[in-house]
């Protein structure tokens, strides 16, 4: 009975957005943004509520470890069983709440944001479709279902990035996103195949139960290591890690709420989520873990440095997202899956907040995105400024806001975990410094200082409530979200000794790296202090640079011009990809077509034909019409025939040998 109720709830949870999509999709031509938005937001809200209802079952004494719902058998062939069944356990509970909750807020925000668009209904339809796919991804009980959602969200992001498709650039950005994701998906597929032929199943619970008790693999070619690496390739695609991160900055071509929902809060974290979900598997592949950690750290630093120099408000946020995702992967790599989840959640809060904030700024500035043309907006849009300010503190990691706890936990584990090392910590540390710097820079250039736009023509204005409410809610969450994971060292000194709730919540659902942790409470305090102080320091420097002494910036730029151009142009990665990979492939294919198909295979056919014709024409030239020649051929034919019979050739040969040979 309970389970049947669960199925019912799951059905609502998942189908609500789908119905929203259908409802809006069928009237896709309508311009009534209010109706469309209401439908979509309602759908999202409904699924949030039903998600909440399901998650509630996980609390209390004797609560089940997970709520599952089986619907029907999707594919079942000779041992390959793919049931359509969903599960909410302590991991997916977090994720589903974040996705539906933040998602609902962003839907709400979109109503205001898309009010002037000409195809709002289509937009909301896509948004719902995305939510539906995201839910499949999160709740799917097996890798195939997850992959279905995985590709589905990619498709939706393609549609939403290219939403204003008449602009070739935006269309191109959409395609870039999809194709890059496809590369990752190919990896995901291979990972699945490896898992299937190793464990004979694709269900999470089955795989994890089969993994349990296996010894960790050494070396690179073990099935688990290979599977882990393949899956990680998938993750790099979806979660914009080196080398596949290039699509995310371009993805900013889409409407800003989309960037907030898909490219900051939910979809891009899917990779992290997948790894956490399979943490018992990954933990068995230390080499793969190492790769993940290094890639994560590298991405964190690289993206952060790029963020230092960008002027497009959304681009800055995009690179910041890439960098934050890097932190999450760093966490996964050092085995701190809990920390990764923690940062995933908090990041969802404050990054969604900041994107929406930037959205309202862009909205207010009439689609202006260049922060050089902003400044002093604080007095024009105070609420946006205030909320953005919260997000700012959160992300640069000043206590007690959300970002502080999660990022600090990651850094600590990077240092202390058996998989960690001081170098990883250092990378995270540097990243933190950069983050604080470019975020402050963003604040400064956007909200503080003097306006750098013509105040007579552009009149920045605060947007309506539909955009305000989400900002406020998210601001609150960013402020307090961190308390779900208070580190022990802090908890001990606090009144009532609050434990690390999140750690406890996830206990038993995520793998914990074997081997003893190095580092002590004192060490943890020191590191904490270091990171906070470096954040504050670089924040102050940035403030000084961009508000007090803008001239200094120019001087610094000129001082290290080369480096600046390099970083400003994002290390020329796109250019390199095009020059070294894409163009060669395209030209190569042209060559293939020209040479293999046209010049080789067809040519061969024609040559055969010409050969036949050649024989024919010789036959015709013999056909001279001259009677005596024909008679001659007859005679020769007879002679030749008889010669063949008597082997005259051989005997003639002998004769010649005697004549000339001897």
């Amino acid at each position, binding site marked *: 009975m309970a389970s049947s109720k669960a199925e019912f709830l799951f059905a609502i949870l998942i189908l609500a957005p789908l119905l929203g999509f259908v409802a809006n999709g069928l009237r896709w031509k309508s311009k009534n943004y209010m109706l469309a938005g209401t439908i979509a937001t309602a759908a999202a809200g409904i699924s949030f509520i039903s998600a909440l209802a399901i998650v509630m079952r996980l609390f209390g004494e004797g609560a089940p470890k997970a709520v599952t719902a089986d619907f029907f058998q999707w594919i079942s062939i000779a041992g390959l069983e793919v049931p359509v069944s969903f599960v909410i356990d302590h991991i997916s509970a977090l994720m589903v709440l974040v996705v539906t909750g933040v998602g609902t807020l962003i839907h709400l925000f979109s109503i205001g944001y898309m009010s002037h668009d000409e195809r709002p209904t289509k937009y909301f339809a896509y948004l719902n479709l995305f939510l539906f796919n995201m839910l499949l991804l999160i709740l799917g009980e097996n890798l195939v279902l997850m992959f279905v959602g995985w590709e589905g969200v990619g498709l939706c992001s393609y549609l939403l990035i290219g939403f204003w498709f008449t602009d070739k650039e935006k269309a191109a950005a959409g395609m870039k996103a999809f194709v890059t994701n496809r590369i990752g998906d190919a990896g995901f597929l291979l990972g699945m195949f490896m898992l299937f032929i190793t464990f004979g199943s694709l269900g999470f619970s089955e795989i994890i139960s089969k993994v349990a008790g296996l010894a960790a693999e050494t070396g690179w070619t073990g099935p688990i290591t290979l599977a882990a690496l393949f899956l990680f390739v998938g993750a790099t695609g979806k979660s914009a890690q080196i080398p596949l991160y290039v699509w995310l900055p371009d993805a900013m071509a889409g409407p800003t709420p989309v960037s907030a929902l898909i490219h900051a809060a939910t979809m891009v974290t899917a990779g992290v989520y997948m790894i956490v979900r399979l943490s018992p598997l990954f933990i068995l592949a230390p080499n793969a873990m190492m790769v993940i950690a290094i890639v994560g750290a590298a991405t964190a630093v690289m993206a952060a440095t790029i963020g230092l120099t960008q002027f497009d408000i959304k681009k800055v946020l995009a690179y910041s997202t890439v960098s934050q995702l890097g932190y999450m992967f760093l966490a996964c790599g050092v085995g701190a899956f809990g920390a990764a989840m923690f940062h995933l959640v908090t990041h969802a809060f404050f990054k969604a907040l900041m994107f929406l904030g930037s959205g309202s700024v862009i909205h207010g500035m009439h689609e202006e995105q260049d922060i050089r043309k902003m400044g002093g907006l604080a007095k024009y849009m105070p609420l946006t400024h205030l909320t953005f300010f919260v997000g700012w503190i959160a992300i640069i990691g000043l206590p007690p806001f959300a970002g502080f706890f999660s990022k600090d936990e990651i850094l600590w584990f990077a240092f202390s975990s058996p998989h960690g090392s001081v170098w990883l910590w250092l990378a995270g540390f540097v990243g933190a410094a950069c983050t604080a710097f470019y975020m402050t820079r963003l604040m400064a250039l956007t909200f503080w200082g003097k306006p750098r736009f013509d105040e007579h023509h552009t009149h920045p204005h605060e947007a309506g409530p539909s955009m305000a409410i989400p900002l406020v809610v998210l601001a609150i969450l960013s402020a307090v979200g961190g308390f779900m994971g208070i580190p022990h060292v802090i908890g001990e000194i606090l009144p009532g000794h609050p434990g690390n709730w999140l750690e406890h919540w996830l206990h038993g659902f995520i793998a914990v790296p074997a081997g003893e942790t190095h580092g002590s409470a004192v060490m943890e305090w020191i590191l904490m202090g270091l990171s906070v102080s470096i954040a504050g320091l670089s924040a102050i420097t940035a403030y000084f640079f961009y508000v007090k002494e803008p001239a200094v910036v120019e001087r610094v730029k000129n001082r290290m011009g080369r480096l600046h151009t390099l970083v400003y142009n994002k290390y020329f990665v796109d250019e390199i990809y095009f020059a070294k990979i894409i163009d060669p492939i395209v030209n190569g294919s042209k060559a293939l077509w020209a040479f293999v198909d046209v010049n080789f295979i067809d040519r061969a056919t024609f040559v055969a034909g010409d050969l036949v014709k050649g024989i024919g024409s010789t036959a015709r030239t013999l056909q001279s019409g001259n009677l005596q020649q024909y008679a001659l*051929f*007859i005679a020769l034919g*007879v002679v030749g025939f*008889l010669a063949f019979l008597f*082997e005259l050739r051989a005997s003639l040969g002998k004769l010649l040998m005697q004549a000339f040979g001897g």
Partner: protein
Amino acid sequence: MIALKDILVVAPMLVLLVASLIPVMIKVFNSNREPAPFVTIAYSILGLVAAGFLTASMSGAKQTAFSDALVLDGMGVWGTYLILGSAAFAMMMAYDHVDTFKRLFSEKCFLMMGSVIGMLILLLSNDLIVTFLGIETMSLCIYILIAMSREEILSKEAAFKYFVLGSFASAIFLYGIAMIYGTVGSTQIPAITAKVGELLTNKNHLFYFGIGMLILGFAFKVSIFPFHFWTPDVYQGSPTPITAFMATAVKAATFIAMLRVFQSAGYQAEPKLMSALSWLAVMTMTVGNTAAILQKNFKRVLAYSSVAHSGYIMIGLIAAAFGDNYDSAAIIVLFYLFSYTVMTLGSFALIGILEKKVGVGLNVDDLKGLAKKHPVLAAALAVILFSLAGVPPTLGFFGKFSLFGVAIEQDLYWLAFWGVLNSVVSVYYYLRPVVVIYMTDSEETSDELVATGGLAKATLVFTAALTVIIGLVSSPLLEMVRAAVLSRH
């Protein structure tokens, strides 16, 4: 001396003789006024039918006549049907063909009947002397038939070429007979086939000469490379009905005569002979098909295609002579001959229907717009061409199928392989007319696409129908042939 059964065996020929004489006699006693062509053809076809019935009445057990000079067995009966049939259709084509002198029609029929008689002799001959007589009778009539064309230049040239080369070849043939006679001591075919093995094993050179020249003499009549050179020229120059007659009846008769000569296990004693013949077969197919690709004149295309077909049939003969299962090979050869005859008659019938300027014949490109003007004829031709190309489920397909079948049965894989390659090549030129008929935009239809000749049209449609019907139910025919061949024992 001459017993009744001898007369009975040759009765069909006598009937033909009488039937062919009647119109001429009428003419003679009617102060040389040509009888109505209808009367002529009626008598002739009546004669042919009567001959057919007579033969049918005698089919069954094999019987010999004139002290084993003639033998009438199932193979002979079957061949007789083929020849009579093709002769009948050839006459129907000639009946209202543009090239026929109405005032010489009786003579024409007379000569055709004459050559039919020659063919029957050749068919039934059990003695090389008789074989030679048959060949000559057949050929002489045809020389004249060719020359009797209304067209002056080409037909005369064709006739003369055919005559000179023909007599040249028959001289060689005769020389072969002489050598064989000298070595075997007899011209009776059974006597020869009985001693082939021993003579070949102890390398009797005279006999080698003899058998070689004999085979090549035959090879000339069925236009095997390199004795095929006359074929395109003569086929083109001759009046189309006569071409059809030559291409079908002559080949059938000669091939069956060859079958008789090859009817001996002794040939396996000389593998070189087999490889030599295989080479000839391959060359024949290749030359015929490749040269046909380059032809513009439809008649020449068909001429070369008939050369190619001789090559295919050679495969069957080789299988018969050098394989271990003469009967099955013989069955297939007869079956193939039948399918070849039907298709060839049909295709030449179309030319006869359409050609206006005698002798020149018509080019493939002149068929443009046929589909618009005469859809039925176009369709019939298309069917026949597809059948020639060996596309199922037509007679041509089953012909090729069984031919390659017998080749593979006797492990003649290379011959089969060449046969297949060649049929691929042949597809190209068999389908070209189809392309011209159906796939070229026929705004400017060549206006000499006037179809004449009811009987010829009937022939075309009938043959087309036959290709499809027998293609679909080939079993009864095969059974008939099998029975015919097996009745030999």
